């Protein structure tokens, strides 16, 4: 990566810190700060600066404190970073704490109406006359509260030297080109900028500068949007969902994109259906009904929804019905922390349901993988005729990530082993005289053939049930019939092992330590490995992208003296699953797990490996 930083023109500061600090914006939920924050991060991104945005929001509609953390990293590290250099205080409820949180030498911009005590000598304070600027803007009373947040955009743009033209472009993008709100907001941004220019002495060290070499060929997007696009472009025809944080925006994204590209331009007829169900029990029921009838069907939910879906997921496993279930993980157990991230549903998803059963689980690490795995999950579900989970999380799903542009999927859809009327007639000849049976494994991979309702062939019909059944789908309670069917399902799961996405491995010569992790931890692992290297510790890294794990994981574990399994939950759930398959190597595995609702940081990971 070649990085060119244009030196900003500045007066009177000795040591400038360029494109390498955190901005934290403290506001109240529902005050419209999202627009202001998106404008900031978008304009920084468009200036070519590696940025990441983490929205720390409450489970509330209006009033509770919210923080938006923007990390700028000229070196391209995009994990959450705990330190704050630039603090913007707009919320009286948290202002004291917020001001304490700033690094020594940092700066604090604050609404000058907030009740504060400027006692720290080691930071720069910049009061902002929010009330006066809003008053002068002469906007309708009901909009004043929203527009107030534009003040800090203007002030911080001046102090950090964010290009005003990029802010304008971000504003135009945000309001979809609608002139009235653009003008109103732009008016207050420029007023604040002008005020800052005239009234503030910019004697603080933090600056931004245009860069190249990192953001080219990328998007700034959240994982739910990416997953929604992925589904729309990988042939989904049916989705049923029930609103639940943090997954709702995925279903809503699908509604929006599908309406744009999956309806006939003239008749408006849709090549899909999206149904808001009455609850998650019904959402998964609809998905199984649709999948059974031949649709490419999916749902998106989160932990509490997964609990409700347990009975139908077990049914889908046993009756062998394709379904894709997106679990945008939030912190559990129970209602937990609905607006905080977690990787706590690995075990629950992998083993969901009573009785013996396991389900393929895909583990995207960023929005691009959400896009790609949307299609991969459908292919696997239809190939394997079973429910397949995609485990994203709130951090990937709802935060803004710089991520590789999505590649148009070239691979044809895999619709699995479906017999139409003609193929059914020819089945016997094609399979050595063997009559078709719904649960008969003729190929030796554990995967039987299925027919769809509506197939015009008298032999096509079968009766689908969650009770014991023979290879020909008739009812049976015979011990041998039951057990051989269960063994075939276990065999099918071994086939799944060969089909799911393989891990991504980065091995370093001479490393004695291995790191295994998954999903949204990826940016923190990259950064932690760089820090460890600085301390003279080389590490190799394997990122699990799916369960069940394949042979690559064993090979990796065998190679290293010690393997740290890093994850965002309490119990080390990925480590527990690895121990099931690699119990003979279990002595090498060290579980490194944390569950505080926040994305993992490189600092914490580095500490765990070096302690």
């Amino acid at each position: 990566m070649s990085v060119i930083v244009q030196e900003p023109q500045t007066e009177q500061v000795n040591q400038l810190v360029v494109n390498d600090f955190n901005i934290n914006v403290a506001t109240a939920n529902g005050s419209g700060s999202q627009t202001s924050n998106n404008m900031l991060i978008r304009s920084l991104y468009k200036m070519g600066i590696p940025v990441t945005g983490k929205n720390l929001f409450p489970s509330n509609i209006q009033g509770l404190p919210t923080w938006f953390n923007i990390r700028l990293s000229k070196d391209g590290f995009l994990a959450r970073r705990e330190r704050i250099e630039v603090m913007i205080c707009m919320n009286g409820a948290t202002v004291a704490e917020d001001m304490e949180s700033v690094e020594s030498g940092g700066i604090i911009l604050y609404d000058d109406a907030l009740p504060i005590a400027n006692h720290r000598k080691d930071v720069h304070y910049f009061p902002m006359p929010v009330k006066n600027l809003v008053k002068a803007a002469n906007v309708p009373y009901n909009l004043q509260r929203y527009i107030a947040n534009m003040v800090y955009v203007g002030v911080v743009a001046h102090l950090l030297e964010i290009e005003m033209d990029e802010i304008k472009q971000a504003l135009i993008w945000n309001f979809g080109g609608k002139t009235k709100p653009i003008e109103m907001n732009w008016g207050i941004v420029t007023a604040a900028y002008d005020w800052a220019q005239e009234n503030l002495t910019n004697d603080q060290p933090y600056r931004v500068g245009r860069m190249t070499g990192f953001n080219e060929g990328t998007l700034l997007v959240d994982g739910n949007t990416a997953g929604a696009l992925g589904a729309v472009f990988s042939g989904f025809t049916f989705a049923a969902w029930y609103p639940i944080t943090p997954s709702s925006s995925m279903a809503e994204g699908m509604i929006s994109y599908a309406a744009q590209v999956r309806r006939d331009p003239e008749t408006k007829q849709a090549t899909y259906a999206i149904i808001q169900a009455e609850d998650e029990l019904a959402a998964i029921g609809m998905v199984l009904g649709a999948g059974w009838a031949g649709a490419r069907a999916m749902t998106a939910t989160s932990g509490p929804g997964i609990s409700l879906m347990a009975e139908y997921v077990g049914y889908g496993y046993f009756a062998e019905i394709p379904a894709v279930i997106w679990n945008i993980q939030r912190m559990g157990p129970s209602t937990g922390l609905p607006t905080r991230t977690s990787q706590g549903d690995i075990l629950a998803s992998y083993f969901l349901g009573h009785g013996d059963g396991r389900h393929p689980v895909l583990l995207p690490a960023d929005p691009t993988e959400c896009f790609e795995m949307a299609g991969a999950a459908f292919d696997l579900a239809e190939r394997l005729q079973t429910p397949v989970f995609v485990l994203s999380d709130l951090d990937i799903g709802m935060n803004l990530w710089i991520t590789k542009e999505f590649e148009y999927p070239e691979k044809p859809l895999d619709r699995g082993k479906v017999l139409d009327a003609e193929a059914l007639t020819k089945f016997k000849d094609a399979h050595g005289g063997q009559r078709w049976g719904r649960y008969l494994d003729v190929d030796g991979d554990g995967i039987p053939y299925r027919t769809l309702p509506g197939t015009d062939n008298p032999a096509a019909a079968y009766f689908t049930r969650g009770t014991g059944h023979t290879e020909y789908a008739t009812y049976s309670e015979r011990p041998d019939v039951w057990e051989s069917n269960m063994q075939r399902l276990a065999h099918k799961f071994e086939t799944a092992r060969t089909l799911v996405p393989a891990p991504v491995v980065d091995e370093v010569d001479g490393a004695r330590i291995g790191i295994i992790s998954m999903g949204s931890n990826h940016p923190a692992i990259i950064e932690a490995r760089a820090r460890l290297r600085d301390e003279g510790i080389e590490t190799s890294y394997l990122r699990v992208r799916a369960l069940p794990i394949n042979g690559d994981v064993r090979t990796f574990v065998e190679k290293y003296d010690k393997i740290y399994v890093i994850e965002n939950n309490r119990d080390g759930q990925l480590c527990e699953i690895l121990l099931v398959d690699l119990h003979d190597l279990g002595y090498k595995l060290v579980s490194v797990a944390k569950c505080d609702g926040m994305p993992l940081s490189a600092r914490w990971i580095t500490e765990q490996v070096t302690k």
Partner: protein
Amino acid sequence: MTATPTRTPAARAPKLNLIGLEKTEYKGGDSTLCNGCGHDSISARIINAAWEMGLKQHEVVKFSGIGCSSKTPAYFLGMSHGFNSLHGRMPSVATGALVANQRLIGIGVSGDGDTASIGIGQFKHLVRRNVPMVYIVENNGVYGLTKGQFSATADQGQTLKYAGTNPYMPLDICIEALAANATFVARSFAGDAKQLEVLLKAAIAHRGLAVLDVISPCVTFNNHDESTKSYAFGKEHETPLHDLSFVPSYEQIEIEDYDDETEVQLHDGSWLVLKKLDAAYDPTDKHLAYRTLEDARKQQKLITGIFYIEPETPSFLDILQMTDTPLARLDESRTRPSREALATLMAGL
């Protein structure tokens, strides 16, 4: 012209329906229910109705939940796909399947436990959405498979051998359906073959969801004479609202207009003719339907017939505005937008 050859009388020509099939071809597997179970009579009526209407079995899908009643789709229309789902969760599966392939004719069979207890939520939402299918509740007021517990439709004060006396008021499935804005609400009695068959045909022809609450006594656990879900009670107390006849769309419609008849045309062009016993009964009057059901409950009367019908309401499938090809049959060229479409959407991010 040559003379027509004289036909030798055949052994006995089997009776064939419109599409040339014998009735036996509409059967399913052998029933495993108790001898004399009302549910088996209902299966026989479904077989007869489907045969007489000349339904193509591959266009029919059967759904059920869990319980004695839910086993029965295995016993009729053996050449139709069937989905014996989870307890109380048939409506969602049926919704998904019928949206995936809107050409299918859905027939769901549930019981009073499956619909009125564990499945009341999904049932009411199925009704609310007006998913086009027949929803039969084989209602006996008792849990048979788990050996004789009360269901939510059991009468207050009713006594069962093991469960004792029921202290709670029952839910009335027809009233629940009406309250959820059902477009077809009817009740019948498993022992009334003629009426049940007419209702089944009308329900199949109905454009939206047709709720058919069929009192089907449990011969093993709930056949005490005092129960409203017993044979003796049913036979003695059954008061049909009207005499029914169903005129399928493929027959020429020649109905003489009597003063005491109401005709309802269904979306496929067929007619339901109601000959009123109660001259005042108008099946398009929802208030009347509520009152009739409530009065019947108070008077412990088994009123049968169509309480309410509204043939014009758009079905769930109409509302979804889907392409004519069923979703399940769309190929990749229709379900994967172009490279340019992706580029455009990405540019907007």
